[in-house]
């Protein structure tokens, strides 16, 4: 479990101040995978550097399993950091060490006995499926394999939290899926809390239980996937379940509205019920249906002819648990 409370980071550039993190609060339950998504410059890297204490937060606190990390002394910092295992975008393996030696590195720091290191390393390589590459150097591994070694290395000190900074941004789609599966597998087996920093919505869709949208140093939307998708006007919802195509130009006069519904509702014949109830022609302009956060969601854009009582339609849909957003009349 990781708890971040009102984290602020201000960089000083000469006389100018850059507020990179502006009061970030976040809590991720044990065994959950939380995604933090944001555009370039949003403060993702700053957040990572503050969590690992590579940079000291200006104020606020970071605690892992109830133990405060921010504000510890330099001496305690070394052991405090072992609470968080970190996976990097470019793996950052040591080229002078073999796969097994890379995974052994954090254990050597602890002064672990050789025989114990050997056992632990072979277990970890087994976990990430790289046993036969134990004696290979990083230059002999593919990008996905390097990332696996990085994950094994991050897990060597039995951390409570696995912090992944753009773990798949340098990988192709297939390898991305494999690495995300591995992260989920590791979470299941070790009951570890995972934080994934990313700019790819696909990563959030495939791996995360919950998500935060970081923008200009603030978390502007957050929650479990199924909740953020359900918020029809939310930016995360639009990004998670986008409608294909552009808004059509030469439509007959009328009203365009977006509908979003989930779970059991998704199997309801929404459109035909609507058409029958109000005796109108409903034109579906675009739609997408996806499994997100363990539930099926449908997002539709429909066109209603002139003369329909929009308020009545909205009330009817809302009553059946369907989110409605009127786009233009």
């Amino acid at each position: 479990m990781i708890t971040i409370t009102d984290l602020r980071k201000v960089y000083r550039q000469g006389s100018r101040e850059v507020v990179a993190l502006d009061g970030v609060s976040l809590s991720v339950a044990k065994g959950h995978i939380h995604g933090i998504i944001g555009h370039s410059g949003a403060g993702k890297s700053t957040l990572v550097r503050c969590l690992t204490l590579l940079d000291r937060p200006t104020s606020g606190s970071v605690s892992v399993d109830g133990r405060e990390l921010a504000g510890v002394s330099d001496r305690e910092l070394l052991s405090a950091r072992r609470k968080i295992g970190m996976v990097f975008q470019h793996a950052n393996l040591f080229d002078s060490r073999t796969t097994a030696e890379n995974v052994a590195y954090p254990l050597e720091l602890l002064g672990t006995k050789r025989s114990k290191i050997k056992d632990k390393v072979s277990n970890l390589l087994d976990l990430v499926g790289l046993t036969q590459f134990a004696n290979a150097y990083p230059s002999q591994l593919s990008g996905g394999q390097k990332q696996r070694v990085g994950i094994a290395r991050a897990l060597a000190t039995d951390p409570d939290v696995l912090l992944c900074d753009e773990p798949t941004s340098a990988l192709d789609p297939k390898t991305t899926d494999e690495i995300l599966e591995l992260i989920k597998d590791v979470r299941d087996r070790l009951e570890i809390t995972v934080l994934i920093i990313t700019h790819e919505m696909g990563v959030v869709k495939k791996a995360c239980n919950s998500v935060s949208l970081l923008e200009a140093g603030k978390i502007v939307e957050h929650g479990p996937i199924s909740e953020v998708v359900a918020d029809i006007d939310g930016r995360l919802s639009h990004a998670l379940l986008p409608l294909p195509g552009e808004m059509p130009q030469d439509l007959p006069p009328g009203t365009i509205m977006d509908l979003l519904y989930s779970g059991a509702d998704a199997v309801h014949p929404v459109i035909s019920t609507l058409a029958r109830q109000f005796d109108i022609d409903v034109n579906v302009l675009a739609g997408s249906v996806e499994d997100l956060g363990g539930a099926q969601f449908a997002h539709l854009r429909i066109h209603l002819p002139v003369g329909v009582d929009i308020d009545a339609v909205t009330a009817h849909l809302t009553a059946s648990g369907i989110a409605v957003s009127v786009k233009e009349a």
Partner: protein
Amino acid sequence: MDWLTSLLENPGITTALPDAIIETLIMMVIASAATIVIGIPLGVVLFLTAPGGLTPVRWISAILSGLIVNITRSIPYAILMLALIPFTQWIVGTGIGPYAACVSLTIGTVPFFARLVETALRDIPSGKIDAALVMGSSRFQVVRKVLLPEAMPGIMAGITTMVVIVIGYSAMAGIVGGGGLGRLAYNYGFQRFDSQVMIVTIVIIVIIVQAVQATGDWLTRRVDHR
């Protein structure tokens, strides 16, 4: 055949050459070893204390980098070795001989070798240092277990370059009293117009340099897993 016979009877070759080779090797080995022992820590300190380094310390960086390394590096070796003769006498007790020459050879090569070490360290992607720190390495562990091993190919190539330069400088040092092949070439080849000694000296120096280069390249490849 005549040339070969006279070669084998030439006292410059039979008596002076073996000693000269040994003196050159003494200068090469001692000065290189001293340069490595002083230059690697100096390179590490230059890297660590530089602005934006792992432990930036303005004044140390300014003194080491600005004053010592840059100034020493801009003094031509031929002048440096003459200027250092009193200092050498004070340290070694004499200004003459291969051991005395090692003083100015070391002082002449340390600054540029330290720069080579610093450059090799700078070439390590900062993400690797971050990774080491995040795993809980102390600064000392970062240097010993990550920076130096990761920079080893660059440092090894730097050592090779440095040893070749020491051999070159040692010939210069030889002329003003260091001995070795430089002195031999000067005494016999230049002052007595003995072209045989001159040619043999050149051949031997070329062989030594090539052997050093080949060994260095081989070692560099051995430690390079990038």
